[in-house]
Protein backbone atom coordinates (compact mmCIF):
# COMPACT_ATOMS: atom_id res chain seq x y z
CA UNK A 1 0.00 0.00 0.00
CA UNK A 2 1.23 3.44 -0.91
CA UNK A 3 0.90 6.27 1.60
CA UNK A 4 1.07 9.99 0.98
CA UNK A 5 1.06 12.56 3.76
CA UNK A 6 0.36 16.17 2.80
CA UNK A 7 0.32 19.31 4.96
CA UNK A 8 -0.32 17.24 8.05
CA UNK A 9 -0.82 19.19 11.25
CA UNK A 10 -1.56 17.49 14.56
CA UNK A 11 -2.31 19.41 17.72
CA UNK A 12 -3.04 18.42 21.28
CA UNK A 13 -4.90 21.26 22.98
CA UNK A 14 -3.38 23.96 20.77
CA UNK A 15 0.11 22.50 21.11
CA UNK A 16 1.45 21.44 17.72
CA UNK A 17 3.14 18.06 18.06
CA UNK A 18 3.52 17.15 14.41
CA UNK A 19 3.87 19.13 11.22
CA UNK A 20 4.69 17.41 7.94
CA UNK A 21 4.54 19.19 4.58
CA UNK A 22 5.03 16.29 2.23
CA UNK A 23 5.96 12.70 2.88
CA UNK A 24 5.71 9.65 0.72
CA UNK A 25 5.90 5.97 1.60
CA UNK A 26 6.37 3.99 -1.60
CA UNK A 27 4.65 0.66 -1.97
CA UNK A 28 6.93 -2.21 -1.07
CA UNK A 29 9.52 -0.07 0.68
CA UNK A 30 10.80 -0.31 4.21
CA UNK A 31 11.06 3.18 5.63
CA UNK A 32 12.91 3.82 8.86
CA UNK A 33 11.45 6.59 11.00
CA UNK A 34 13.90 8.20 13.40
CA UNK A 35 13.73 11.20 15.66
CA UNK A 36 14.08 12.50 19.17
CA UNK A 37 11.73 11.49 21.99
CA UNK A 38 8.53 13.41 21.53
CA UNK A 39 9.19 14.24 17.89
CA UNK A 40 5.87 12.69 16.92
CA UNK A 41 6.82 9.27 15.53
CA UNK A 42 4.15 7.38 17.44
CA UNK A 43 1.65 10.12 16.70
CA UNK A 44 2.32 9.78 12.97
CA UNK A 45 1.91 6.00 13.05
CA UNK A 46 -1.36 6.38 14.96
CA UNK A 47 -2.64 8.75 12.33
CA UNK A 48 -1.57 6.53 9.43
CA UNK A 49 -3.10 3.48 11.12
CA UNK A 50 -6.48 5.20 11.05
CA UNK A 51 -6.93 5.10 14.82
CA UNK A 52 -6.55 8.85 15.08
CA UNK A 53 -8.62 10.72 12.51
CA UNK A 54 -8.50 14.03 14.35
CA UNK A 55 -5.92 16.04 12.39
CA UNK A 56 -5.59 18.71 9.72
CA UNK A 57 -4.23 17.89 6.27
CA UNK A 58 -4.34 14.78 4.19
CA UNK A 59 -3.23 11.19 4.52
CA UNK A 60 -3.87 9.24 1.34
CA UNK A 61 -3.96 5.47 0.94
CA UNK A 62 -3.33 4.55 -2.70
CA UNK A 63 -4.39 8.12 -3.43
CA UNK A 64 -7.68 7.97 -1.51
CA UNK A 65 -8.81 9.06 1.93
CA UNK A 66 -9.03 6.63 4.83
CA UNK A 67 -11.87 4.13 4.49
CA UNK A 68 -13.07 1.58 7.02
CA UNK A 69 -12.03 -1.23 4.65
CA UNK A 70 -8.42 -0.05 4.98
CA UNK A 71 -8.38 -1.40 8.52
CA UNK A 72 -8.31 -4.93 7.18
CA UNK A 73 -5.09 -4.11 5.30
CA UNK A 74 -3.19 -2.23 8.01
CA UNK A 75 -1.26 -3.88 10.80
CA UNK A 76 0.43 -2.05 13.65
CA UNK A 77 2.43 -2.96 16.71
CA UNK A 78 2.16 0.04 18.97
CA UNK A 79 4.93 1.20 21.26
CA UNK A 80 3.15 -0.28 24.27
CA UNK A 81 1.17 -3.12 22.71
CA UNK A 82 -1.86 -4.41 24.58
CA UNK A 83 -2.07 -8.17 24.72
CA UNK A 84 -5.41 -9.72 25.54
CA UNK A 85 -5.81 -11.59 28.81
CA UNK A 86 -5.63 -15.00 27.21
CA UNK A 87 -2.90 -17.35 26.06
CA UNK A 88 -0.21 -16.38 23.58
CA UNK A 89 -1.82 -18.73 21.07
CA UNK A 90 -5.25 -17.12 21.46
CA UNK A 91 -3.74 -13.66 21.05
CA UNK A 92 -2.12 -14.52 17.75
CA UNK A 93 -5.25 -16.32 16.60
CA UNK A 94 -7.51 -13.32 17.25
CA UNK A 95 -7.15 -11.42 13.92
CA UNK A 96 -7.81 -14.67 12.05
CA UNK A 97 -10.84 -15.42 14.19
CA UNK A 98 -12.49 -12.05 13.61
CA UNK A 99 -12.01 -12.58 9.88
CA UNK A 100 -13.80 -15.91 10.05
CA UNK A 101 -10.82 -18.05 9.00
CA UNK A 102 -11.60 -21.76 9.53
CA UNK A 103 -10.08 -23.39 12.59
CA UNK A 104 -7.81 -25.79 10.71
CA UNK A 105 -6.16 -22.98 8.75
CA UNK A 106 -5.95 -20.78 11.85
CA UNK A 107 -4.04 -23.50 13.64
CA UNK A 108 -1.53 -23.92 10.84
CA UNK A 109 -0.97 -20.18 10.51
CA UNK A 110 -0.57 -19.54 14.23
CA UNK A 111 1.90 -22.40 14.58
CA UNK A 112 3.95 -21.15 11.66
CA UNK A 113 4.04 -17.62 13.10
CA UNK A 114 5.06 -18.88 16.52
CA UNK A 115 7.80 -20.96 14.96
CA UNK A 116 9.10 -17.98 12.97
CA UNK A 117 9.19 -15.77 16.06
CA UNK A 118 10.61 -18.59 18.15
CA UNK A 119 7.87 -18.38 20.77
CA UNK A 120 6.44 -21.91 20.53
CA UNK A 121 7.59 -22.67 24.05
CA UNK A 122 5.28 -20.03 25.54
CA UNK A 123 2.30 -20.86 23.33
CA UNK A 124 0.03 -21.75 26.30
CA UNK A 125 1.33 -19.09 28.69
CA UNK A 126 -1.05 -16.29 29.65
CA UNK A 127 -0.11 -13.02 27.98
CA UNK A 128 -0.20 -11.03 31.26
CA UNK A 129 2.76 -13.05 32.52
CA UNK A 130 5.14 -12.51 29.61
CA UNK A 131 8.42 -10.61 29.78
CA UNK A 132 8.73 -7.33 27.86
CA UNK A 133 10.58 -8.87 24.92
CA UNK A 134 8.30 -11.91 24.74
CA UNK A 135 5.27 -9.62 24.70
CA UNK A 136 6.74 -7.66 21.77
CA UNK A 137 7.34 -10.85 19.80
CA UNK A 138 3.76 -11.98 20.43
CA UNK A 139 2.40 -8.58 19.42
CA UNK A 140 4.42 -8.73 16.21
CA UNK A 141 3.27 -12.26 15.41
CA UNK A 142 -0.33 -11.17 16.04
CA UNK A 143 0.01 -8.16 13.74
CA UNK A 144 1.44 -10.35 10.98
CA UNK A 145 -1.29 -12.99 11.27
CA UNK A 146 -3.72 -11.15 9.01
CA UNK A 147 -0.95 -10.45 6.48
CA UNK A 148 -1.30 -6.66 6.30
CA UNK A 149 -0.27 -4.74 3.19
CA UNK A 150 0.91 -1.89 5.39
CA UNK A 151 2.86 -2.71 8.53
CA UNK A 152 3.55 -0.05 11.15
CA UNK A 153 6.13 -1.00 13.75
CA UNK A 154 6.75 1.32 16.69
CA UNK A 155 10.03 0.39 18.37
CA UNK A 156 8.95 -3.20 18.16
CA UNK A 157 12.41 -4.62 18.76
CA UNK A 158 13.43 -2.24 21.54
CA UNK A 159 13.20 -4.84 24.35
CA UNK A 160 14.44 -7.78 22.37
CA UNK A 161 17.86 -9.39 22.73
CA UNK A 162 20.23 -8.50 19.88
CA UNK A 163 20.51 -12.03 18.46
CA UNK A 164 16.74 -12.37 18.44
CA UNK A 165 16.45 -8.94 16.81
CA UNK A 166 18.44 -10.23 13.85
CA UNK A 167 16.18 -13.26 13.55
CA UNK A 168 13.10 -11.06 13.65
CA UNK A 169 14.55 -8.74 11.02
CA UNK A 170 15.15 -11.78 8.81
CA UNK A 171 11.59 -12.96 9.33
CA UNK A 172 10.28 -9.50 8.49
CA UNK A 173 12.39 -9.47 5.33
CA UNK A 174 10.94 -12.83 4.33
CA UNK A 175 7.43 -11.55 4.99
CA UNK A 176 8.22 -8.39 3.08
CA UNK A 177 9.46 -10.34 0.06
CA UNK A 178 6.44 -12.63 0.09
CA UNK A 179 3.87 -9.86 0.26
CA UNK A 180 5.66 -6.80 -1.10
CA UNK A 181 4.11 -4.88 1.80
CA UNK A 182 5.00 -1.36 2.86
CA UNK A 183 6.72 -1.14 6.23
CA UNK A 184 7.23 1.92 8.41
CA UNK A 185 9.73 1.08 11.08
CA UNK A 186 10.24 3.39 14.04
CA UNK A 187 13.54 2.88 15.83
CA UNK A 188 16.12 4.74 17.89
CA UNK A 189 18.85 2.47 16.65
CA UNK A 190 20.62 4.12 13.70
CA UNK A 191 22.57 0.98 12.84
CA UNK A 192 19.41 -1.08 12.71
CA UNK A 193 17.74 1.52 10.51
CA UNK A 194 20.66 1.47 8.11
CA UNK A 195 20.85 -2.28 7.76
CA UNK A 196 17.10 -2.98 7.71
CA UNK A 197 15.49 -0.08 5.88
CA UNK A 198 15.50 1.03 2.24
CA UNK A 199 15.26 4.68 3.23
CA UNK A 200 15.27 6.66 6.47
CA UNK A 201 13.32 9.70 7.55
CA UNK A 202 14.15 11.83 10.53
CA UNK A 203 11.37 13.75 12.28
CA UNK A 204 12.22 16.86 14.24
Amino acid sequence: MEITVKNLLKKYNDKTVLKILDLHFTKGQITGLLGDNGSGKSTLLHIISGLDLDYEGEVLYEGACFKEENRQLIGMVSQKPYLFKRSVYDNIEYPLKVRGVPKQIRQEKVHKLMKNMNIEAISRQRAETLSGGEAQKVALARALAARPALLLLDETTSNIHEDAVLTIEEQLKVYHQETNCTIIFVTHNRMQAERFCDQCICLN
Partner: protein
Amino acid sequence: MNEIANGFIKAFWMIVSFDPELYEIIIRSLVVSLSAVMISSLFCVPLGIWLGLKRFKGKQLISRLLYASMSTPSVVIGLLILLMLSRRGPFGFLGLLYTPSAMIIAQTVLVTPLVLGLIYHTVKQRGRQIQQEGLLLGADSFQVMILIIREFKMDFLVHLIAGFSRAISEVGAVMIVGGNIKGSTRVMTTTIALMNSMGEYDMSIALGVVLLLISLLVNIVVYKEAEPWK
Protein backbone atom coordinates in the same frame (compact mmCIF):
# COMPACT_ATOMS: atom_id res chain seq x y z
CA MET B 1 -29.18 -10.50 78.15
CA ASN B 2 -31.00 -13.81 78.50
CA GLU B 3 -33.51 -12.75 75.87
CA ILE B 4 -30.78 -12.08 73.34
CA ALA B 5 -29.14 -15.46 73.97
CA ASN B 6 -32.52 -17.12 73.59
CA GLY B 7 -33.09 -15.26 70.35
CA PHE B 8 -29.83 -16.58 68.97
CA ILE B 9 -30.61 -20.15 69.99
CA LYS B 10 -34.06 -20.01 68.39
CA ALA B 11 -32.62 -18.35 65.30
CA PHE B 12 -29.99 -21.05 64.97
CA TRP B 13 -32.69 -23.68 65.29
CA MET B 14 -34.80 -22.03 62.57
CA ILE B 15 -31.86 -22.08 60.20
CA VAL B 16 -30.83 -25.69 60.75
CA SER B 17 -34.40 -27.03 60.78
CA PHE B 18 -35.18 -25.35 57.47
CA ASP B 19 -38.06 -23.29 58.85
CA PRO B 20 -40.34 -22.86 55.81
CA GLU B 21 -41.24 -19.23 56.42
CA LEU B 22 -37.60 -18.28 56.91
CA TYR B 23 -36.46 -20.00 53.74
CA GLU B 24 -39.33 -18.67 51.70
CA ILE B 25 -38.23 -15.15 52.62
CA ILE B 26 -34.58 -15.87 51.89
CA ILE B 27 -35.33 -17.33 48.48
CA ARG B 28 -37.64 -14.45 47.58
CA SER B 29 -34.92 -11.96 48.51
CA LEU B 30 -32.39 -13.74 46.36
CA VAL B 31 -34.75 -14.08 43.41
CA VAL B 32 -35.81 -10.42 43.51
CA SER B 33 -32.29 -9.00 43.87
CA LEU B 34 -30.64 -11.38 41.41
CA SER B 35 -33.33 -10.68 38.80
CA ALA B 36 -32.89 -6.96 39.29
CA VAL B 37 -29.13 -7.18 38.80
CA MET B 38 -29.43 -9.43 35.76
CA ILE B 39 -32.01 -7.25 34.05
CA SER B 40 -29.97 -4.18 34.85
CA SER B 41 -26.78 -5.76 33.47
CA LEU B 42 -28.47 -6.45 30.13
CA PHE B 43 -28.41 -2.79 29.29
CA CYS B 44 -25.77 -1.46 31.69
CA VAL B 45 -22.98 -3.50 30.10
CA PRO B 46 -23.49 -2.42 26.46
CA LEU B 47 -24.49 1.12 27.42
CA GLY B 48 -21.61 1.53 29.88
CA ILE B 49 -19.11 0.34 27.28
CA TRP B 50 -20.57 2.61 24.63
CA LEU B 51 -20.56 5.65 26.93
CA GLY B 52 -17.05 4.87 28.13
CA LEU B 53 -15.60 4.71 24.62
CA LYS B 54 -17.59 7.40 22.88
CA ARG B 55 -16.34 10.96 22.67
CA PHE B 56 -19.16 13.47 22.53
CA LYS B 57 -20.09 16.93 23.69
CA GLY B 58 -21.46 16.97 27.22
CA LYS B 59 -19.73 13.77 28.24
CA GLN B 60 -18.39 15.56 31.31
CA LEU B 61 -21.93 16.46 32.34
CA ILE B 62 -23.20 12.91 31.80
CA SER B 63 -20.34 11.58 33.94
CA ARG B 64 -21.17 13.95 36.78
CA LEU B 65 -24.87 13.10 36.67
CA LEU B 66 -24.17 9.40 36.51
CA TYR B 67 -21.70 9.44 39.39
CA ALA B 68 -24.08 11.59 41.44
CA SER B 69 -27.01 9.24 40.84
CA MET B 70 -25.03 6.17 41.92
CA SER B 71 -26.06 6.73 45.52
CA THR B 72 -29.68 7.75 45.08
CA PRO B 73 -31.54 6.90 48.32
CA SER B 74 -33.56 3.73 47.92
CA VAL B 75 -36.70 5.28 49.42
CA VAL B 76 -36.68 7.90 46.69
CA ILE B 77 -36.58 5.18 44.03
CA GLY B 78 -39.32 3.34 45.91
CA LEU B 79 -41.49 6.40 45.95
CA LEU B 80 -40.88 7.06 42.26
CA ILE B 81 -41.85 3.53 41.26
CA LEU B 82 -44.85 3.66 43.60
CA LEU B 83 -46.13 6.76 41.82
CA MET B 84 -45.62 5.07 38.45
CA LEU B 85 -47.36 1.85 39.41
CA SER B 86 -50.09 3.18 41.71
CA ARG B 87 -53.63 2.86 40.44
CA ARG B 88 -53.75 6.43 39.19
CA GLY B 89 -50.17 6.38 37.88
CA PRO B 90 -49.20 5.94 34.23
CA PHE B 91 -48.53 2.21 34.65
CA GLY B 92 -51.31 1.56 37.16
CA PHE B 93 -53.25 -0.54 34.64
CA LEU B 94 -50.57 -3.24 34.89
CA GLY B 95 -51.67 -3.96 38.45
CA LEU B 96 -48.12 -4.64 39.57
CA LEU B 97 -48.03 -2.69 42.82
CA TYR B 98 -47.43 -4.84 45.92
CA THR B 99 -46.15 -7.76 43.88
CA PRO B 100 -42.65 -9.21 43.59
CA SER B 101 -42.53 -7.83 40.02
CA ALA B 102 -42.84 -4.31 41.38
CA MET B 103 -39.96 -5.06 43.76
CA ILE B 104 -37.80 -6.30 40.89
CA ILE B 105 -38.60 -3.16 38.89
CA ALA B 106 -37.73 -0.91 41.83
CA GLN B 107 -34.45 -2.69 42.53
CA THR B 108 -33.55 -2.70 38.85
CA VAL B 109 -33.98 1.07 38.78
CA LEU B 110 -32.06 1.33 42.04
CA VAL B 111 -28.96 -0.62 40.98
CA THR B 112 -28.80 0.59 37.37
CA PRO B 113 -27.01 3.91 38.01
CA LEU B 114 -24.54 2.18 40.32
CA VAL B 115 -23.71 -0.65 37.91
CA LEU B 116 -23.75 1.64 34.89
CA GLY B 117 -21.50 4.16 36.64
CA LEU B 118 -18.97 1.51 37.66
CA ILE B 119 -18.85 -0.09 34.20
CA TYR B 120 -18.62 3.31 32.53
CA HIS B 121 -15.76 4.30 34.83
CA THR B 122 -13.77 1.12 34.15
CA VAL B 123 -14.21 1.37 30.38
CA LYS B 124 -13.44 5.08 30.33
CA GLN B 125 -10.17 4.47 32.18
CA ARG B 126 -8.87 1.42 30.34
CA GLY B 127 -11.21 0.56 27.50
CA ARG B 128 -9.90 2.69 24.68
CA GLN B 129 -6.62 0.80 24.42
CA ILE B 130 -8.52 -2.47 24.03
CA GLN B 131 -10.86 -0.90 21.49
CA GLN B 132 -7.92 0.39 19.46
CA GLU B 133 -6.11 -2.94 19.54
CA GLY B 134 -9.30 -4.69 18.44
CA LEU B 135 -9.85 -2.27 15.55
CA LEU B 136 -6.22 -2.64 14.46
CA LEU B 137 -6.61 -6.38 14.34
CA GLY B 138 -9.67 -6.10 12.14
CA ALA B 139 -12.57 -6.47 14.58
CA ASP B 140 -15.89 -4.75 13.81
CA SER B 141 -17.79 -2.76 16.44
CA PHE B 142 -19.72 -5.77 17.70
CA GLN B 143 -16.55 -7.83 17.96
CA VAL B 144 -14.91 -4.95 19.83
CA MET B 145 -17.81 -4.97 22.31
CA ILE B 146 -17.38 -8.71 22.91
CA LEU B 147 -13.62 -8.24 23.25
CA ILE B 148 -14.08 -5.58 25.90
CA ILE B 149 -16.55 -7.70 27.86
CA ARG B 150 -14.07 -10.57 27.82
CA GLU B 151 -11.14 -8.40 28.86
CA PHE B 152 -13.10 -6.83 31.72
CA LYS B 153 -15.14 -9.85 32.75
CA MET B 154 -13.72 -9.93 36.27
CA ASP B 155 -14.12 -6.17 36.76
CA PHE B 156 -17.68 -6.31 35.45
CA LEU B 157 -18.49 -9.24 37.71
CA VAL B 158 -17.28 -7.25 40.70
CA HIS B 159 -19.47 -4.33 39.59
CA LEU B 160 -22.52 -6.59 39.30
CA ILE B 161 -21.82 -8.00 42.74
CA ALA B 162 -21.67 -4.45 44.10
CA GLY B 163 -25.11 -3.90 42.56
CA PHE B 164 -26.37 -7.14 44.08
CA SER B 165 -25.04 -6.18 47.52
CA ARG B 166 -26.83 -2.87 47.27
CA ALA B 167 -30.08 -4.56 46.20
CA ILE B 168 -30.12 -7.35 48.77
CA SER B 169 -29.36 -5.01 51.66
CA GLU B 170 -31.76 -2.15 50.91
CA VAL B 171 -35.09 -1.78 52.72
CA GLY B 172 -36.73 1.39 51.43
CA ALA B 173 -37.60 0.56 47.84
CA VAL B 174 -38.93 -2.97 48.38
CA MET B 175 -40.86 -1.85 51.46
CA ILE B 176 -42.65 0.92 49.59
CA VAL B 177 -43.54 -0.93 46.38
CA GLY B 178 -43.84 -4.41 47.89
CA GLY B 179 -45.79 -3.51 50.99
CA ASN B 180 -44.15 -6.25 53.07
CA ILE B 181 -47.11 -8.61 52.68
CA LYS B 182 -46.74 -11.92 54.49
CA GLY B 183 -46.31 -14.85 52.11
CA SER B 184 -46.03 -12.65 49.05
CA THR B 185 -43.68 -9.66 49.17
CA ARG B 186 -41.69 -10.09 52.35
CA VAL B 187 -37.92 -10.10 51.92
CA MET B 188 -35.12 -10.33 54.47
CA THR B 189 -34.63 -6.65 55.13
CA THR B 190 -38.30 -5.72 55.35
CA THR B 191 -39.00 -8.67 57.64
CA ILE B 192 -36.19 -7.66 59.96
CA ALA B 193 -37.55 -4.13 60.11
CA LEU B 194 -41.08 -5.35 60.84
CA MET B 195 -40.21 -8.06 63.37
CA ASN B 196 -38.06 -5.64 65.32
CA SER B 197 -40.93 -3.20 65.62
CA MET B 198 -43.06 -6.07 66.88
CA GLY B 199 -40.40 -7.17 69.34
CA GLU B 200 -39.97 -10.64 67.80
CA TYR B 201 -36.27 -11.05 67.59
CA ASP B 202 -35.78 -14.72 66.61
CA MET B 203 -36.75 -14.29 62.99
CA SER B 204 -34.80 -11.01 62.81
CA ILE B 205 -31.66 -12.57 64.19
CA ALA B 206 -31.94 -15.60 61.90
CA LEU B 207 -32.42 -13.37 58.86
CA GLY B 208 -29.68 -11.01 59.98
CA VAL B 209 -27.24 -13.91 60.25
CA VAL B 210 -28.22 -15.24 56.82
CA LEU B 211 -27.96 -11.78 55.26
CA LEU B 212 -24.49 -11.37 56.69
CA LEU B 213 -23.45 -14.82 55.51
CA ILE B 214 -24.65 -14.09 51.99
CA SER B 215 -22.71 -10.84 51.72
CA LEU B 216 -19.61 -12.44 53.18
CA LEU B 217 -19.82 -15.45 50.89
CA VAL B 218 -20.38 -13.37 47.78
CA ASN B 219 -17.43 -11.15 48.55
CA ILE B 220 -15.11 -14.02 49.38
CA VAL B 221 -15.96 -15.80 46.13
CA VAL B 222 -15.50 -12.65 44.06
CA TYR B 223 -12.19 -11.59 45.51
CA LYS B 224 -10.82 -15.11 45.40
CA GLU B 225 -11.73 -15.24 41.71
CA ALA B 226 -10.55 -11.71 40.99
CA GLU B 227 -7.15 -11.85 42.70
CA PRO B 228 -5.08 -14.07 40.42
CA TRP B 229 -5.84 -11.78 37.51
CA LYS B 230 -4.49 -8.63 39.10
